[in-house]
Structure formats: C-alpha cells, structure tokens
C-alpha cells in the first residue's frame, strides 16, 4: 500500500477514536458542571418545581448513561439530535439546522482570513529570510509580534475605531444572515477577517523565516550559492521546498484556530459564528449542541493536521518514494 494511502487510513481511524473519546470527555465534563439546563435557562427564577417539570420535558430526569447511549446511537445514524432549547414545542430545533448557517459563517470568515493571512505570511517570511537582520526584517518582526501580543478584542476595537467610526470604510457590526449577498458578506466580515489576520500572521511568518534560515546553513545551499545562483533563486527554489513540512504544520495549526478560537472576535463584531453558539450552549448546558460543536472542532483539527502531514509527505521525495 502506498504510504500516503496508509497514512490517511491510519489517521482517519485514529481520528474516529479521538472523536469518540472527545464526546465522552465533553459529556462527562458537562455532567460534572454544577447546575443543569433548566437551572441555567430559568436563572434566578428557577424553583425546584419548575426545574423538575422542565427536566422531565427534555428527558433530563433519566440517567446520564442512557442519555449518552441514545445520543451516540443517533450520531451513528447521522442524527445530531435536537437542542434542549425549545424542546417543549411542536417545532423541534434540530442541532444540524442550528449549526449549519453558523458553521457556514465561521468557515466563510476563516477562509477569508486565511486567504489574506497565509500568502501574506509566507511572502513576508521568505522576504524576511532573504533580507534577514536588515531593517525590513526587524520591522516585519516587530510589527507582527506586536499584533499577536495584543489581545484580540483590543486589535478589534482599534480597527473598529479607525475604519468604522473615523473613516467609515467598513461596518462596525458584522451581522449577516441568509439574505446577505456574497459581496455584502465580504464587506461585513472585512474587519473581523483583518483582525484575525493580524492575530495569526506572526506565527506563520516566523516559522517560514526560521525554517528557511535553518536550511540556509546546510551544505547543498552553500553549493548552490557557490555555483553563483542568485540569493532569491536559492531561497525560493532550493530552500523553500525543503522547508514546507514545518511551515505547513504551523499553517494548519493556525487555520484550525481560525475555526475554533474566534469567539472573542465574533462577540466584538456581533458576527454569528459557531464559537458564540458553543459558549451559549455550554453556559446553558445544552448538551446536544455542545457535543456537535465539540465534534466539529475536533474533526477540524484532525483533518487539518492530516492534510499538513500529507503535504509534508508529498513535498518530501524521501517519504513519497520510500525504498
């Protein structure tokens, strides 16, 4: 079997196991948290009577193990279940219907930020390696490290202040809905995407720079330089192909972050992504929604890491054609 196919199959199998473990961990963690859905929703106005009636209605009066088995049985048949919220009414809220539009928004924002951030980070990284220790290198380093060091909400407020309030180029609210057109979605999501770009760019840029500089000390690069090949060509054609593995790993890590870690940006810009949904679901102990979000997040990590590994293999002939 070809090593790529084997890796993919192996990883996918392990991935499924990971998802299973994640679901158990999340479920038990939610069970261990004090309070339940009814208490969380009714808040200060909860009385033992109303809480009991509420729990009965959503089936929370049954043992945890029964609920878990039922839930996982549904998942295996592709049914993510219904949210506890609104469970008493005729119209059930299916978790998949709740999550789908928000997941779309989250991926939209993540892709938009990635499309800006990844090429920019790689270019800056290569240039910084090319002109290392120059003024350019120092400026790029200090600027990107500054933006990563600042908290996301602060970066967001600063951008909002200049681009939404003073210059009025963009919207201060990123509320989008199903009726929003593609172009409007882009302009609404512009400030959050720029914020995220500023937050993730340093990591990728630094890794690109470091990986290339690391290779520049190796004998084959020295040989290329001695042959008289221009520095630019040495870096792009000789060093970069061998530097892909570490870079891709970092890129994958940051892309995963764009999907799972942007709740602060969502709140500040009022962008209806999946992060806010998960936070609300956790604080109200809405187990089916929390589980679905957790599985999506875990799957995102697994798949992105898998792609990073595959790219590392493809770019490395020794791994691609093993003897």
């Amino acid at each position, binding site marked *: 079997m070809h090593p790529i196919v084997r890796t993919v199959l192996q990883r996918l199998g392990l991935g499924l196991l990971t998802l299973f473990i994640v679901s158990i961990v999340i479920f038990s963690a939610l069970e261990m948290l004090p309070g339940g859905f009814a208490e969380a929703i009714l808040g*200060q106005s909860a009385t033992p009577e109303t809480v009991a009636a509420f729990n009965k209605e959503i089936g929370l009066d049954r043992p945890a193990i029964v609920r878990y088995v039922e839930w996982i049985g549904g998942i295996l048949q592709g049914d993510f279940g219904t949210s506890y919220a609104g469970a008493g009414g005729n119209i059930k809220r299916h978790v998949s219907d709740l999550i789908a539009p928000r997941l779309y928004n989250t991926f939209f924002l993540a892709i938009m930020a990635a499309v800006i951030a990844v090429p920019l980070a790689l270019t800056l990284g290569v240039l910084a390696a090319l002109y290392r220790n120059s003024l350019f290198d120092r400026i790029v380093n200090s600027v990107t490290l500054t933006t990563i060091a600042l908290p996301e909400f602060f970066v967001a407020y600063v951008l909002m202040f200049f681009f939404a309030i003073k210059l009025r180029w963009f919207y201060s609210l990123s509320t989008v809905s199903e009726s929003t057109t593609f172009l409007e979605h882009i302009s609404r999501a512009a400030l959050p995407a720029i914020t995220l770009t500023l937050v993730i760019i340093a990591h990728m840029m630094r890794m690109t720079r470091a990986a290339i500089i690391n290779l520049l000390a190796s004998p084959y690069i020295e040989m290329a330089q001695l042959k008289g090949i221009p520095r630019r060509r040495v870096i792009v054609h000789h060093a970069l192909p061998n530097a892909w593995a570490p870079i891709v790993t970092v890129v994958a890590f940051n892309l995963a972050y764009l999907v799972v870690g942007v709740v602060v940006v969502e709140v500040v810009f009022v962008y209806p992504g999946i992060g806010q949904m998960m936070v609300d679901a956790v604080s109200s102990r809405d187990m089916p929604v929390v589980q679905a979000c957790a599985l999506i997040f875990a799957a995102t990590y697994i798949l992105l890491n898998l792609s990073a590994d595959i790219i590392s293999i493809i770019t490395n002939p020794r791994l691609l054609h093993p003897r």
Partner: protein
Amino acid sequence: MMRDFDNKIRLASKLVAQGRVSRRDFMQLALAGGLTVAAANTMFVRAARAEPKKGGTFKIGIGHGATTDTLDPATWTNGFQFCMSIGVFGAQLTHIDQKTAVQPHLAESFEPADGAAKWVFKLRKGATFHNGKDVTADDVVETYNYHRGENSKSAVKSALDIVGDVKADGKETVIFTLKSGSADFPYITSDYHLPIYQAKDGGGIEWEKGISAGPFVLGDYQPGVKATAKRNPNYFVEGKPYFDDVEMLSIIDVTARTNALNTGEIHYMDRVDLKTIDLLKQNPGVDITNLTGFGHYVAPMDVRAAPFDNVDVRTALKYAINRKELVDKVLLGYGTPGNDNPIAPSIKYAINPEPVHQYDPEKAKFHLKKAGLETLKVDFSTSDAAFSGAVDAGLLMQAQAKAAGIDINVIREPDDSYWDNVWMKKPWCMSYWGGRPTCDWMFTTAYAGGAAWNDTFWNNARFNELLSAARAETDDAKRAAMYAEMQQILHDDGGIIVLMFNNYVSGHSKQLAHGDLNSNFDYDGGYIFERWWFA
C-alpha cells in the same frame, strides 16, 4: 415673578423633551402661570417634539440574548425576550403606564368582585391575532393555564399561585377566581411572560411562531442574533405603532453596542457603559435617557444562620455600609442609595422608612455591642453574575465596615451557575431584583414567609398577616397604612440590605422622538416599539 415663571417653563420644556415631565405636570405649571389650556397644550406638544408620525425602520441594540433563547414564554428571563413580548409581537391583558398604574390593553376593562377575589376581564372587541383569528376568552384561559398548570416550568408560575381558577364566560369575558382577594391582581397580567397566544385544540397554546396580537408581526428570528418584525396593520390600538419595521439586534459587548450607535447602525442602545458615557454624550446626534427604575442591588442575609439570626447584627451591618459611596463608585452616580426598603420611590404606597440607614460606624458598633459582640467576622459571597460591579462593591463594603469593627471576608464566587450554588445557599451574598410594580407583588415574591424566592428566609408573623390583609383591602387609605407598616418592619427587622436602586441609562439617536417614559423597566418599560417614532 414673570421672569421666574419663564425660567420654570423653559426648564419644564426641557424636561418634557427628555421625557421627564408628564403632560399633566407641565399643564399644571403652565396654567398656574396664567397660560390658557390650549396654549399650554401646544407648548407641551412642541416641547415633546411634535405629533408622532409613521414610518421608518427602528433598529435597537440590546445587551441581552443567547443562542439558546426560544419563543417559549415559560422560559423567558432576559431583556431581549422581554422586549419581544412586551413591545414587539406580544399583547398582554394590561399595560403599565408612565405613572406605574395599570391600564387596560388587550382587555378592554377589568373589574373586581367579592372583595377583589374575583376579577372580570372583558376583551377588546375585534382584536385579532397576527394570522387574522379573533382573540377569544378561551385563548386567554389556555394561555394562563399554560403557565400555572401542574407541569408548568414557567418563570411566572409562583406569581400565578394566587389564581384558583380561570374560566371563559362567553367569547369576550374571562373570569379569574383567586384563592384570596388581591386588589393588585391586574398588575400581574401585564407581566412579559403573559402575552396571549392561540389555544390549541385539546389544550395548550401555540407559541412556536410568536403569533400573538401585538403591534408587530414577527418575521425572521435568530436566537441570540436578531429579530425582525413588521407593523401589524390590524393592531387593536388605533394609530399605533408608528414604525414600519423593527430590527432587534443582540449585541452583548457594550463597546460594540456603543460603536453601532455612534456609526448609526442602531438607533437605540441599552445599558450604556457608564465609564465612557461622557464620551458618548459628546456625540451631537445622541441623547441619553436616565431613569430610576424598580431594579435594585441587594445583599440578602439568611436570618436563620448565625450571626444573622440576631437582629442587632443585621442592623449593625446595615449601618456599616456606605451606600452613597457605592452609588458614586459602582454606579458612577447613576443610581439612588437604598434604605433597606425594596419598594422603589415611584411605586404606589412607597415610603422612606425612618431612621434612614446610612453610613454610621458608631451606630453599627452600638448595635454590635447590643448583640454582645466587640468585633464581627463574616463571609460574604459575591460575583459579577449578581450584577456588574458586585465584586468591587463587595470590596468597598469590606473597607467601609472596618471602621465599625466588622471584618467582611469577601469571597469571589464563579459567575457560572451563581444563582444555583450561591444565591439562597450561602448565608450572605450579593443579588439583584428587577423589581415589581406593586408592593404586594414584590413582598409576595421575596419577603413573604415561605415564598420560593424569599432569599433572606425571613418570616415575620405581623408582616405576613399584613400582607394578606392588604392584598384584599380595597380602601386606599387603609392599604397605604398597611404597606407603610410593612415597609417599616422590613426596614427595621428584615434580612435584606438594599444597597441601591440602579438607573436605566440608555442612549438613542436624536432622530427618535418620544413622550413620557415608563420607569418600571428599560426600553420605556418595553413599550418603546409602540410609543416612539422618528421625528
């Protein structure tokens, strides 16, 4: 003399523009100064920024709402749901007016009988649901039964405990039979959990689509994100509402809300950030409304637990806290110091009990000594879940009480599940009441012996006796005397420390115009959608 009057009228006009003086008060002042009724009225209307007119899309940014919100009225607890119910799609039997009196709304009239133990509500003729069906007495009965049934999970279940039976008498009359007389019962029917829904065949109500009889028809609703609604062309109140469309956005982050108001993406924001309010005031297009409501911050002591079982310890603590400083530092002046009376000054029968409990370490020491103690060390649980600034307030109280020889050990509890694990569990903690529009409702909810939310576990025989007596009393003077006595008893003996009443401070675009404002809650009591208009 005349100059003085001019100044007064000018000031009054300004207050009218801010919605802080009612038409009646303004007219009285103007008439006293010799103006004719017509002239005074013209002046009032001009000051109140002209006649309302129709049109426009009103966008409001609300600092509440979660993705787990639903349209199920039994589960409503936050401000977003409050607005949707009171102001947008819901229609309650009654409304609360600007003077905090109860007025007919979906009910055309309500009359007590049998010493206020029976209430007859007549529905408005011709009122229809958004889908065109008539609102009937059966719908009302089912709506109330939904909240008070045995398996109800409703947040108003305990408020409706007093109702023994609800039944329809023909299509337009509903008769509430109460377990005991209650002169204030119609107030309860104005609650935001109680918009009237259509009865389902075989019992229950249809709440799933938000179809009630309110001023707007709910369109797109995305929990925790936004709700849109269109004017209800068949609304039973003539000429209202004024806006064509309403768009409600859930904007939890206060900075985002402020920016949205500044950039014109919304016309109204609730809960202005008091720390930056002066910057917001610099925006020439923005007005601020600032009203003392019924909401109050409290520190309930469990009177069953030592040392709070000793009334002198309780009194010592009441004197050991500098409420003025709390208002100045936690609410930045946007509030009123409490006097251990949970009844807001604007509520009927409210008194200000003597002696006023204000910061007096000497008196605190005196009461401590009376309790046989030299010093006192108590644990105090707090968290910003109780109200924003509660931890800071706890630390201020700790510093203030030192002068009285009281060592308050402030414990910061986790925000998450604070209401489950701390409130009513720990002997002394921070809490918040949104307040109720009547003495009876507030007392029944939180101070009657054995009440579900009696967070001080205080059980005073005289108080309980007066509570039942006053509830059924229809003679105004007698009721006033009873409620005065109850407020005094609670003030002197109760386990509640009412720290302060908070103001509702909101910002809105000057494009909006409004009349007098309700003080029972933010958003003009929730009626903003129906009462405000674009100037």
